[in-house]
């Protein structure tokens, strides 16, 4: 009996073969133990990769100041390198393309500073303080009171004042709307292993 080729086993393990070829591969694996084992290995690998990706998280105590310092450091470094090039008398040797590139770098650096400054200083707009994830997935509105919930937690806002109960975004975090006027989220704390349920209610 002729064995399946490796690429077909790999594709079949992900269900990416055509319908007929996929059925043929599955039928073959029913009777061929080596090919079946190979396919199981591929599936196990895929599962491990998925698990690794799912369990990846940003460090909880991320030092934003340090990251910010590095960004500014890199911008400064780019400017310094350019200045060194000029002071060493290399400017005349540079082609016009390099000059454009240098100006581009300064422009990009300036734009980066403007964008970052704007980002940090930008006004809250409507409900912006809760909008650090792409969109709310649960919302309750009762007059001027707005409850919101997403992977990051749950919050309430009313006339420019607000409170949010946050948790670390996690693949296992959940949230739910209560039709009586509540939003609930639950997440497992990485450090303590406790599951914490945060809930906001409309009175």
């Amino acid at each position, binding site marked *: 009996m002729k064995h399946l080729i490796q690429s077909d086993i790999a594709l079949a393990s992900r269900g990416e073969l055509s319908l007929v070829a996929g059925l043929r591969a599955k039928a073959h694996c029913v009777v061929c133990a080596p090919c079946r084992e190979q396919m199981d290995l591929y599936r196990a690998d895929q599962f491990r990769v998925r*698990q690794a990706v*799912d369990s990846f998280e940003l460090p909880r105590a991320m030092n934003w*100041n340090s990251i*910010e*310092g590095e960004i*500014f450091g890199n911008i400064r470094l780019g400017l310094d390198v350019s200045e060194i090039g000029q002071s060493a008398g290399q400017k005349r040797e540079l082609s016009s393309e390099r000059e454009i590139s240098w100006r581009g770098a300064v422009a990009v650096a300036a734009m980066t500073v403007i964008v970052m*400054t704007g980002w*940090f*200083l*930008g*006004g*809250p707009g409507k409900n*912006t*303080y809760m909008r650090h994830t792409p*969109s*709310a*997935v*649960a*919302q*309750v*509105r*009762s*007059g*001027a*009171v707005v*409850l919101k919930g997403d992977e990051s937690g*749950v919050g*309430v806002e*009313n*006339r*420019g*004042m*607000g*409170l*949010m*109960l*946050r*948790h670390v975004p996690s*693949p*296992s975090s*959940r949230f*739910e*709307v*209560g*039709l*009586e*006027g509540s939003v609930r989220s*639950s997440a*497992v704390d990485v450090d*303590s*292993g*406790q*599951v*914490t*349920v945060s*809930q*906001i*209610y*409309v*009175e």
Partner: protein
Amino acid sequence: MSNKLALLSLGFASCLVAQDGLRVNFPADAPISVVSSGWGESKAIPRGGAYVVDVKTSLRLKNNSRLRLRGISLQVSSQEMVAGGKASVSVPSLDVYPGQEFPVKIDLRLLQPNAAASSAVVVQVQLDGILFEDMSFFGPNRLGSRRQLTAWEIEARRDRQHLRLILARGGEESLKKIMLDVLARDNSRPKLDVRLARSAATLANSRGIETAFLAQPDLPVEGVKAVAVASGNQLQILELAFENRDKREVRSIELGLLVRDHEGREFSAGSLPAVLSMKPRMGATVMPAASVTLNRPMGLPMKVESVTGFVQQVEFSNGEVWVPPSGFRDEARLSKLIAGSVEEQRLSEIYRRRGLAALIEELNRQ
């Protein structure tokens, strides 16, 4: 925010909030005490004309009772918790021995209109309830913590028992397979963007839609009537009627809701807790004054064709709580639509992070 950025932002400096604006008020006769409390990392960041204040509080509590503590619920409030809202942080599935200490983290973000207010932040934490191993409860129960903590504990015992049984009958491979299924379902469950507006007004241009209740075994409260209307992606449940089949008086129920779109796809649309008093063999009616707007991810409107309810909690007047048996979600093919218990969430996270051996150890521990 760093000094560099503070300089760059021309004086829009962040200002640290008061060192300790945390006020923890527990009743004098509470069977738990506060060992330590305080602000953790806290800071205020200017955002236009307002201030965002991040507060990471940490409480360390001690169980002074003679019983093992199973869950706690705290009410959290501040001047930012404007009129009209309430907040709670609950930690179920605990196993705190008498005399043992345990942490409760509260990670808050407050939005304030001005800088002066941000330097005088006061967050109040009050006890709403504690549940012990014998299901006895202590606390003012202003937020309905008794029902919720009791239901979580019953679900936790049910799920741990179910997993222990699987381990005993099918061995480690069976347990592993179950946990992999749980993780896979958590990732693949269809998500719905649910926006609820509290209003008694009937939807414009609405039409009556199909309604149903799931058949459930040994159900103490049965849904007998449901009236719902829809208009595009908006849903309004006008009336729900229930009958108490149990010998005990019912104090409240919680109904899970499933919606189906015009292509036959089903989604969970949240839950409906309702306080309704029902004597044995009597009925009661609920009329939710709210409409729900349902969108699929990326903002695609969901055209609502039908709604199905299932009873997921019943609270009796004697404090007892009924939850569906462990096999219900699988038998009713609900596993792919609704999430499992918070205990299942905790145990699957243990398996995901620490592996099968840690999960088995956890199952054997309690």
